[in-house]
């Protein structure tokens, strides 16, 4: 048990910090992660630069551009990336479909998809949720009927994040309609340009579009775009959902946000001093910093703690608590903006202030998507605490 980074890890931290703050294309730092308020071409350029440096997908097998890093080293990579305001690689690419293809895909699929997935030459979106299968994925109804060496896909997906920019979608489809629930589901890779696909954007409370409905009408998908075995898609989905659980705490992002909100509080005036001089506000910052510290330490502990490769069961709390903390920081941001939060656009008030409410409203999603807080509590109760009725 020791507090300091080992010399190797400290050197790694230094290397990452140097890369992100000097070698990485500096004009691409500061891309907003928020809503649809960024240029997708910039995001592609940013990820391509990371891929060039071998830093887009460190968790992948090294033959596909991954790094043979410890969990702690991966966490340091993510921390330094966030600290330098570099946009993280698209999670759909590097944390989701990439590892699935690398683990269950054919050699041909690996060669065809992995390099372009790492560099974001292919932008992936996820086709899991359906109108009547949100948290209850096993109820999904989109079908894929085998016809010769093609699947014919019909149905509808919803909550497809950034689907409007995506080149490809990885989708769960029902290939055996007679099988029950989890059985009979397959994992299919589909080019978004395939005829029969329609994307309908869904506007969110903040006015932006980042989720979509995707409709499939007799969409013909070559059978070699099936990953792994037919009707085994549920296993791959579980692998995907359990994979990189550690990343979901979003510690680096929350930390950057919190420090920005604090900086703004020091700029806002209250009476003769600044808002940050108000003991109640200062105490609130101190409290959030303490909780974020505990979350960050937990990420390090549960990712680095077990040497046997199995994720520490405690990792299931990272999404739960990370999303809550993210929302608490954004709520404090509204309070710091004060009266300025009442307008959403004003040429002369700072963007951070007029953007605080839409940002807060948008991120109510954090406890809903990617496995809602209720789903996380259910997992903890059932699998860790063994509480079953």
């Amino acid at each position, binding site marked *: 048990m020791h507090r300091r980074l080992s010399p190797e890890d400290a050197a790694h931290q230094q290397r990452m910090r140097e890369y992100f703050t000097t070698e990485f294309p500096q004009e691409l730092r500061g891309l907003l992660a928020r809503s649809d308020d960024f240029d997708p071409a910039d995001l592609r350029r940013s990820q391509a630069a990371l891929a060039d440096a071998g830093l887009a997908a460190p968790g992948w097998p090294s033959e596909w551009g991954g790094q043979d890093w410890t969990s702690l080293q991966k966490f340091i990579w993510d921390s330094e990336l966030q600290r330098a305001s570099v946009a993280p690689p698209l999670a759909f690419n590097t944390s989701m479909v990439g590892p699935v293809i690398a683990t269950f895909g054919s050699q041909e699929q690996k060669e065809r998809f992995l390099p372009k997935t790492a560099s974001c030459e292919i932008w992936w979106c996820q086709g899991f*949720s359906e109108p*009547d299968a*949100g*948290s*209850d994925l096993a*109820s999904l109804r989109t079908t894929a009927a085998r016809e010769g060496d093609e699947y014919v896909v019909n149905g509808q997906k*919803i*909550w497809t994040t950034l689907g409007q920019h995506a080149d490809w979608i990885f989708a769960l489809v029902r290939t055996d309609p007679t099988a029950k629930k989890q059985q009979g589901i397959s994992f299919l890779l589909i080019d978004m340009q395939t005829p029969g696909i329609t994307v309908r954007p*869904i*506007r*969110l*409370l*903040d*006015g*932006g579009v980042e*989720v979509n409905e995707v409709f499939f009408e007799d969409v013909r998908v070559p059978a070699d775009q099936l990953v792994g075995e037919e009707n085994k898609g549920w296993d791959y989905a579980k692998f995907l959902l359990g994979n990189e659980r550690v990343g979901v705490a979003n510690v680096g992002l929350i930390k950057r946000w919190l420090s920005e909100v604090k900086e703004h509080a020091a*700029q*806002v*005036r*209250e*009476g003769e001093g600044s*808002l940050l001089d*108000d003991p*109640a*506000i200062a105490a609130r910052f101190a409290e959030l910093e303490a909780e974020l510290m505990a979350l960050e330490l937990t990420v390090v502990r549960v990712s680095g703690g077990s040497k046997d490769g199995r994720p520490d069961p405690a990792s299931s709390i990272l999404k739960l608590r990370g999303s809550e903390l993210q929302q608490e920081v954004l709520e404090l941001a*509204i*309070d710091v903006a*004060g*009266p*300025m*939060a*009442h*307008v*959403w*656009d*004003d*040429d*002369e*008030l*700072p963007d951070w202030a007029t953007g605080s*409410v*839409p940002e*807060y*409203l*948008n991120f*109510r*999603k954090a*406890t*809903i*998507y990617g496995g*809602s*807080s*209720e789903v996380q*509590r259910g997992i903890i109760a059932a699998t860790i605490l063994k509480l079953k009725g």
Partner: protein
Amino acid sequence: MDFTTTDEQRALADATRGVLSRHGSPAAESGSSAQPPAHDTALWQALVELGIPAMPWSEEDGGVGAGITDLAAAATELGRGRIQAPLAETVLAGTLVARLAPAELRQQVLGAVSEGEALLVPALDEPMRTFDPTPHDVRAEEGADGWQVTGVKAPVRYAPAATHVVLTARTASGTGVFLLTDPGATAERLDLDGASVTLLAEGEAAEEALRDALAVAGALLCAEALGAMEEALRMTTDYLRTRKQFGVPLAAFQALTHRAADMYAQLELARSATLFAAMSAEESPVDVDAVLRARVVVDKAARLIGQEAIQLHGGIGVTAEYPVGHLSARLTMISRTWGSTRSHLATLGSRVAEHRSVDVLG
């Protein structure tokens, strides 16, 4: 003490609901964002026809002479209907005019407000400052041609539509309250550079009048929040009853229904506090602390209900196409209008040593 709604209040609520349902709720219906809307003249005119902006002023001033409890009944319907209109704004600014302006000016302004000819809003906030009834960076000076004011007031909700603005500015004797006519604003801000204004009050008189007017307007904000919370809970329980997951309605999940029960408990406490705030705003002098306490209770309820309504809906709750998130958005802002839970508690806290307990029966 009596919480019973009067027949007049019920009739007013019904009439307001009628107007609003004919008018509709543009934002949610068109899938627009939850951005606070600009002034809607047609809607306001319909409220004028119901006599709502005339209610709080004396008949002598061209008003109806009704009480805040009546007006609160209308505000609750605005909240329920997801309609934003400058009602609390009109009442805040108008209460200052009614109390501080000489008879002729008072009758002229409030008469025009009552008729819908004038739109009167307050301008209290200054950029990069927390809410403070005391002005800091905007200053007023008296010259040969009367009072002139310089500085930036922002944000000023509904400024582009306003014909009259009551604003605060720093004077030699501290806080000054002024009336500005024809502000000619093109955005929700006032850039003042020696603008001519009419002094309504200075110093302690100005501060007291502001405190009371903020309390009256605060009671209306509570009432609006009450309607929004009721509607948010209604939509949430409807959703839990009808939406199915894992083959059963969400109402089968006890973890969700117990949270709905907590929302209900907060709603009912907020209802009591809101009705009491309206009654307290009718007292003379206004019971400012009772309103502040109500605002604290309503803020807390608004936060819980606003957040849980979205969470219990899941993904659809954050979409612009579905109404529940719009209610949450408005609740988020009501609890941050003219102060915050933090500022209300700081004010109440500074006086907490002055009484043994809070007695409501008397």
